């Protein structure tokens, strides 16, 4: 228990050290924040939702920095504007997944045949191809934004549960939990005061990983026209628009939104990777 208190006291110093040793975490987080700020506040040269039919498939120029697509949309404006939709969607979906999955995982870590059975069921569920599953959910439940978030939840909650459960099970055996129980702490208090602070590390890196995947899933969905309502911009939808012109060499239509997806996913992966390395080094 003493070790725990010692840890929380030095949180600030420790987080500085983490940022220094794992620069990926800081870089990744700043990229995400910058993209969000740009998406919401950057003044756009053209309307991201109103096309200019007279200027279709223009290559990048001083007028249209990223060119225009086959409908006459300005690719720059739409790439930036999409960040304000795709990123919050991914973040909300992932954070909700963590909020639901972590307590469920802690609950499922109580010993007994039922928690075992539930985990088995989740395993079977997880072996289904994720993107197909997400598409099925959104298609069958209706082409709305909430359903995209629900799809992300259904894909991610089992993962959080698994992870938290296995982490909690190994913590349960450790000495300070035993000590807390020995001095008569209630199960709920043990969970809140001792288990939660210690699983937070793995949860953070999983959250980051899940956010990266959520961006991929959202892009895949909107690439297939699921979960988006044109002309509202979304990276996947923009890439879809470019598929028809890529074989004739009009690269800019897919490359710029593609790079945006890549940078966003890579940023979250960097954070996840850094957090994971930190834990590997601590053990």
């Amino acid at each position, binding site marked *: 228990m003493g070790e725990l208190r010692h840890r929380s006291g030095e949180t600030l110093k420790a987080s500085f*050290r983490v940022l220094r040793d794992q620069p990926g975490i800081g870089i990744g987080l700043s990229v995400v924040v910058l993209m969000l700020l740009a998406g919401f506040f950057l003044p756009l040269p053209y309307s991201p939702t109103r096309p200019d039919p007279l200027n279709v498939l223009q290559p990048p120029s001083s007028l249209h920095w990223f060119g225009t697509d086959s409908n006459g949309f300005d690719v720059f404006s739409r790439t930036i504007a999409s960040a304000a939709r795709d990123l919050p969607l991914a973040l909300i979906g992932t954070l909700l997944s963590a909020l639901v999955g972590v307590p469920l995982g802690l609950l499922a870590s109580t010993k007994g045949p039922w928690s075992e059975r539930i985990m088995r069921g989740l395993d079977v569920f997880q072996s289904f191809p994720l993107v197909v599953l997400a598409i099925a959910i959104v298609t069958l439940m209706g082409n709305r934004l909430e359903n995209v978030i629900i799809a992300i939840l259904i894909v991610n909650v089992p993962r959080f549960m698994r992870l938290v459960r296995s982490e909690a099970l190994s913590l349960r055996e450790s000495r300070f939990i035993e000590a807390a129980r020995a001095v008569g702490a209630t199960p709920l208090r043990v969970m809140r005061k001792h288990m939660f602070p210690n699983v937070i590390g793995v949860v953070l890196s999983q959250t980051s990983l899940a956010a990266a995947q959520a961006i991929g899933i959202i892009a895949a969905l909107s690439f297939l026209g699921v979960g988006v309502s044109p002309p509202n911009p979304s990276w996947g939808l923009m890439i879809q628009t470019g598929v028809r012109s890529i074989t004739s060499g009009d690269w800019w239509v897919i490359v710029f939104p593609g790079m945006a997806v890549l940078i966003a996913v890579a940023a979250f992966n960097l954070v996840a990777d850094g957090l994971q390395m930190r834990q590997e080094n601590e053990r």
Partner: protein
Amino acid sequence: MSTPRLLDVRGVVASYDSARGIVKAVNAVSFSADRREMVGIVGESGCGKSATIRALLGLIRPPGKVVAGEVLLDGQDLLKMTKKEIRQVRGDKIGFVAQNPFAALNPIYKIHRQFHNVIKAHEGRSSRRSTRKRAVEMLEAVGIPGPERILNGYAHELSGGMAQRVVIALALILDPELIVADEPTTALDVTIQRQILDLLRRKTVDEGRSLLLVTHDLGVVAQYCDRVVVMYAGKVVETGAVSEVFARPAHPYTRGLLQSVPRRGTKVQTLEGRVPSLIDYPPGCAFADRCVFVIDRCRKEVPELRPAFADGGSVREVRCHVNEQEVCADATVNS
């Protein structure tokens, strides 16, 4: 002292960079071993005894590295060798006996293949028939009945004692001059322990090898070893002949270790406290905080290794500011 010793370790320093600073796991360690001699290296876990033998085998992996010192085997400095040369020395001139035979043996390969691979690694292509013949002889020599059957089987089919004999046979297959054994009996039953140690003693004394025995078991050292090296916090704190060190410990730490061994007629005294962190190395003596003889000087000045009991006739060394007569006098009262 005129004939060169088989093994001479001089001022070896091994350190590694951790997230919180440089850790000197092995700090200027020196000792030596003659042929037909068993040298015990003792200390609590984390004192650097395992790191020491890994340093002399060239087994320290990054981020760790050996930064200073000499390891002379037959007059050749192992630390100056290229990776290829030191690899040839391992197995061929130095045999290694691991702590847990089941963790050490390859679980996927048959025992014969493991012998075959070791021989092939040093002698180039060899026929399976010839390696089998040599393996059978070696297994018989370490007391394994029915070696043919063992060679066709896997490690997990063996008992603990048999598996450790197989490990010893693997270490000896190329007839090394030095055997390094890292807690070779810790994972075994008490009855098996004696058999394995007897075997190692025979292989050392009868066949003219030298053996480094890393252990935390002082009873084993007392019974089997000729000389002992006591380590604390990465440093050698005392060396000498086992009979003398055990009768008259010169370092308060050795004395504490000896008193913590249960013996008939005496009260067990446990050593209080823990080995200090190798990062926040205290100024002065590393043992000062746990020492019952501590004086002011201990907290200011790092003690050097110095001769002790100059009257005794044999070579004793100790790393302590306190007079050794004082330390051992108190010890004899207790035992």
